[in-house]
């Protein structure tokens, strides 16, 4: 059973079709990337997923069926625009948000203590939220989202405002949660982080699904028939290679349309060159993202 399944959902606001026939599924226990440029319809899709908005058409199944009040306690959602009470102490804010997820005040306290320690917020617990730095508020929001140990976690831009140390902290935490069996939906513009963390992705643009699938498979689909090679010696004149481009200490061999990587490897071995690195040059997610958004490929 998928943790979330969206089937042909459409949502229109006035003249604007924010989500247009979007379908995808998020499997249980996976770390799933939801990508798209600004205004692509990601947030509307999430809101439809969470039953904040009713889609005009299509169906949403979350944790095995339609959204219910009871299911809200099994879901953690951190919206892109942070939402914490600014005028109350951090502890009270966490306690209240935890209590709205079904935790008793004592249980909420028991659960936020270790997180406060881990995120270096323990000594700031008594401060009003508005007195915390942006990064601290970001971490506090993450704690509030995780307190009730949800089965499904949806985090929208969890890394914004974090320094490299805290970014690593959140990355480790997300990996840890996946290992514990939590389904995580990561919505982010930071492609290298999505690439690092996610198993599968969906890319939405103009309300439509442009890419959907396992990350490796998507990258392979966008590979430009090129090889990355690091080898000592002359690489010119290799059969099937149209051009050579130096890239960060390696060379990128652009192959002719029907040339096979295997035949290039054979030629390298035949020349008796010492090959340190030989791999199919796959595009990174940044490149794929830009190509898709510019309309250079991408299908659902």
């Amino acid at each position, binding site marked *: 059973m998928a943790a979330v399944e969206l089937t042909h959902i459409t949502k229109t606001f006035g003249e604007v079709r924010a989500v247009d026939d979007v379908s995808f599924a998020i499997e249980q226990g996976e770390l799933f990337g939801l990508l798209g440029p600004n205004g692509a319809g990601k947030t509307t899709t999430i*809101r439809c997923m*969470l039953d*904040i908005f009713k889609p005009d058409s299509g169906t949403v199944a979350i944790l095995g069926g339609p959204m219910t*009040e009871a299911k*809200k*306690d099994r*879901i953690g*959602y*951190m*919206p892109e*625009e*942070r*939402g*914490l*009470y*600014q*005028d*109350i102490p951090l502890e009270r804010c966490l306690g*209240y*948000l935890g*209590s*709205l*997820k*079904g935790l008793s005040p004592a249980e909420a306290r028991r659960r936020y203590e270790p997180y406060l320690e881990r995120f270096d917020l323990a000594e700031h617990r008594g401060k009003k939220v508005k007195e915390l730095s942006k990064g601290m508020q970001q971490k506090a929001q993450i704690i*509030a989202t995780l307190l009730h140990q949800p089965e499904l976690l949806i985090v929208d831009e969890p890394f914004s405002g974090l320094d490299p140390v805290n970014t690593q902290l959140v990355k480790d935490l997300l990996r840890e949660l996946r290992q514990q069996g939590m389904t995580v939906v990561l919505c982010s513009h930071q492609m290298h982080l999505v690439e690092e963390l996610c198993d599968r992705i969906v890319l939405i643009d103009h309300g439509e699904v442009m890419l959907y699938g396992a990350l490796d498979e998507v990258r392979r689909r966008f590979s430009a028939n090129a090889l990355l090679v690091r080898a000592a010696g002359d690489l010119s004149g290799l059969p099937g290679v149209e051009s050579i481009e130096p890239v960060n200490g390696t060379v990128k061999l652009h192959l002719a349309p029907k040339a096979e990587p295997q035949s290039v490897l054979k030629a390298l071995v035949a020349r008796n060159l010492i090959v340190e690195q030989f791999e199919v040059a796959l595009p990174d997610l940044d490149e794929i993202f830009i190509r898709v958004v510019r309309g250079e490929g991408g299908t659902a």
Partner: protein
Amino acid sequence: MIKTWRVALHEYRQHVFNKRFLLGLFSVPLLLLVMVGLIFLIFAMENNQAPIGYVDLSGILADPLPPPPVENPDRPVEFFAYPDEAAAMSALEAGEIQAFYVIPADYRTSGALRVVHLQDLKYSPRSQFEAFLSVNLLRDADPAVANRLIEASDVTVRSPDGSREMSSTGWFNMLLPAFAGMAFVIAMFTAGGYLMQAVVEEKENRTMEVLITSVSPGQFMAGKIIGDIAIGLTQIAVWLAFIAGGILIGRGSIDFLQGIQISPQLVLLVVVILFPAFVMVAALMAAIGATVSEAREGQQMTGLISLPVWIPFMLLMLIVESPNSPVVLFLSFFPLTAPLTILMRQSMTILPAWQIAVSAGIQILGAVGAVWLAGRAFRLGMLRYGKRLRWKEIFARA
């Protein structure tokens, strides 16, 4: 249900344990205290306790009876007899007395007397001397008649059904419903203001999105309204405690406070008229909070609710002079004007049971409607940032 209570508790704690609220809460009784203090001060200034002298040439006060007891908060003044005006004048100039009366020999026939004073002679000492003189003028009359003449008439106006009466000691009871109505209205707008502010802030700081993925809009709105009512009731309870304390302390020295009684009908009106009105105003304030995009805009819109609520106060003279006129009757039934109108009319006239029933019914329906409206406004407006939700939209989708 537990989430509703948690929202209510949060709402309550956030506002009640807050300096701004506490300042507002205690400033009203403190203001009352200052006002009462000023009244006492004025009484004290009016009540010069220095003795009054008299030169009696008529013989009325030759062997005087003591003056009648004075009513609180007045203080008794002593009266000294002087053989002639010169002696009285020197006592006056020496500051031993505040004034002296000269009662001429023909006073019984002329009724004219003379008073000499250096500073303004206040009402209280003057009336005490007049009472002293009256007692002695009537010393030979039948005591019952003398007593009637001295105390004058005490008219008690009683309604035909005997349910209400007004006398010189019970006049404050007449005003009590109007005061209760005003206190409730002030409390409902103070608490409602907090509620609106809280909803707008939750929209502004984007907490709303987190909240609605934790509780249902119904639970959230119900919790907010319960919290809001609890805030208002806290305010009223604290004020009542101050007033009750004031009455208990002041009973000994202020006569009219002894007659204060809370009638069962006033309690009934609080329950069936003021309480639903409180819910209605709270819900409407929440609806405003959900529809606007910033607090300032919300405060401007609050006027649309507060203005009709205060209209009866502006039409005070009409309600006093014609409490049963068609206009006043209409105001008694219109949801927002009913609370003050009904309570003010209760002070001025006998409210027929059917009018209370109809008004209460309309208030309760109004409260239910307002909660429904707030729920819709909340559902549609909760994620509307930077753009106001139009009332047309709320009803269009209904």
